[in-house]
């Protein structure tokens, strides 16, 4: 009977292999924002008290949108922060981000299911009476963000393009972004209300486990040679570092703009490795090749030129914005022109 057993074992192994194969991400998405659990009373727009507000110290630029954010953790669950650079969230975690100009325009929603993260965007009606699921291919909203330019509500592929590029699908919610040692020069930083989450509050409330002790005793802070450098590196971390990381899809580019908590001093920040390094892209109007960061010479620095462009071929980030962030361009231009002057690769 041994051969019968062997056959059974083989069949069983095949079945297990088939079951263990990741399932396609087909988790259904609610058709209305009201059904995602954000509000305890949608009519009065009362946010459920179990959904906790927060604000990253270095926000992503979104063409001047005012943003509000919340996280929901299933009761009794915790975030696994043993890897301080890539937290792992329990199944059932939800994130919401609301985009508003003169009115609410869009609310993005991420939910951690057993199949992985599910992405959805909800479009608010002009009178804010309801918010319904956007088409999977995205949709142009009625919100003008600049003359003749309207806010685009992203497709699911757009969401995945940024959120699945690096070491974690969750961007803007981590040790550096929630540090209580907030950067006063961070562009577009939002005021922090008393009930907003911070790293210390997460730990006190037992919502996070495995945090390295030194991160709690000494809140994360970007090491830089000047306050302007700190704000610049924080901006690059939040707006570029999701893709431009030493781990993940674009690691092969060798351009790391994500700030690692392991950086011990201003000289060991990976973004500074971009100084003097040739960029493959030929900037419009420029002769010859450019370099990513040219100390003392903002106009020859490809990173700045691409931030300052909204031509679809050159703009960075490549999606999610139609208006140049002039405040950030000014900040980083001065950092390259003054703070980096005399630096060498």
């Amino acid at each position: 009977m041994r051969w019968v057993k062997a056959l059974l074992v083989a069949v069983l192994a095949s079945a297990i292999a088939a079951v263990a194969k990741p399932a396609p991400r087909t988790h259904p998405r609610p058709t209305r924002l009201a059904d995602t659990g954000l509000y305890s009373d949608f009519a009065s727009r009362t946010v459920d008290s179990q959904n906790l507000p927060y604000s990253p110290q270095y926000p992503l630029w979104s063409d001047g949108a005012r943003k509000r954010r919340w996280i929901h953790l299933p009761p009794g669950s915790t975030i696994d922060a043993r890897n301080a650079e890539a937290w792992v969230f329990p199944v059932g975690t939800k994130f919401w981000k609301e985009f508003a100009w003169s009115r609410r325009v869009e609310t993005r929603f991420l939910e951690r299911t057993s199949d992985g993260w599910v992405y959805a965007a909800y479009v608010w009606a002009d009178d804010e009476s309801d918010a319904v699921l956007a088409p999977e291919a995205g949709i142009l909203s009625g919100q003008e963000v600049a003359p003749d330019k309207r806010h685009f509500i992203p497709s699911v592929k757009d969401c995945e393009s940024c959120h699945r590029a690096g070491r974690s699908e969750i961007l803007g919610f981590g040790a550096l972004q929630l540090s209580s040692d907030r950067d006063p020069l961070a562009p577009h930083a939002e005021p922090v209300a008393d009930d907003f989450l911070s790293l210390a509050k997460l730990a006190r409330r037992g919502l996070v486990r495995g945090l390295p002790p030194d991160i709690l005793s000494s809140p994360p802070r970007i090491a830089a040679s000047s306050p302007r450098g700190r704000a610049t590196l924080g901006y690059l971390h939040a707006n570029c570092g999701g893709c431009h990381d030493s781990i993940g899809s674009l690691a092969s580019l060798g351009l790391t703009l994500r700030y690692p908590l392991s950086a011990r001093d201003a000289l060991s920040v990976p973004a500074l490795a971009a100084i003097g390094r040739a960029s493959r892209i030929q900037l419009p109007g420029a002769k010859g090749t450019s370099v990513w960061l040219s100390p003392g010479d903002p106009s020859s620095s490809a990173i700045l030129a691409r931030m300052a462009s909204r031509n679809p071929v050159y703009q960075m980030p490549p999606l999610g914005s139609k208006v140049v962030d002039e405040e950030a361009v000014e900040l980083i231009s001065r950092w390259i022109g003054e703070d980096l002057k005399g630096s060498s690769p």
Partner: protein
Amino acid sequence: MKSWRLAVCVGLFAAVIGMSTVAADRKGPGATVRRGEYLVTLGGCNDCHTPLKMGANGPEPDRSRLLSGHPQDLAMPPAPKLPPGPWMYTAAATMTAWAGPWGVSFTSNLTPDAETGLGKWTEQNFVESMRSGRHMGHGRSILPPMPYEAIAKMTDSDLKAVFAYLRSIPAVTNRVPDPIVPEPK
């Protein structure tokens, strides 16, 4: 009884291993590359990525520039403006430059050249590009007439075979111009 069952079991095991070995031998170490070449040929990649040149019998692929994209030394004049009507696209004689409502696109250098081709791309970069329709999977949109929507339907193993083939062809140093695209509304 036990001995013949054991013999059958050993025989079956040997047969399975033997069949696998024969199959692997048949495929050979270059099987993936050959599969990739087959897919690239069938998929029409050469139609746009290998420039046409004029031969004795008319336009023919320039094999010396295999899959190296729009020739860097072929500077294109501005695309002709088409009158309103059903004509909407124009293409260069090489089939490597295309103009339409999106702007002007030049076909990419797919050879393994490190500075001007896919030499620094990883297999993951390539697969993600074809799946997402974005440069390196996360950058700017890949432009028409690249039929990435159809290619996105290929299996992972087929996309990896295509990449393996593209890594196997001669590197051609050819810096393709960036596309020319107007700012969208």
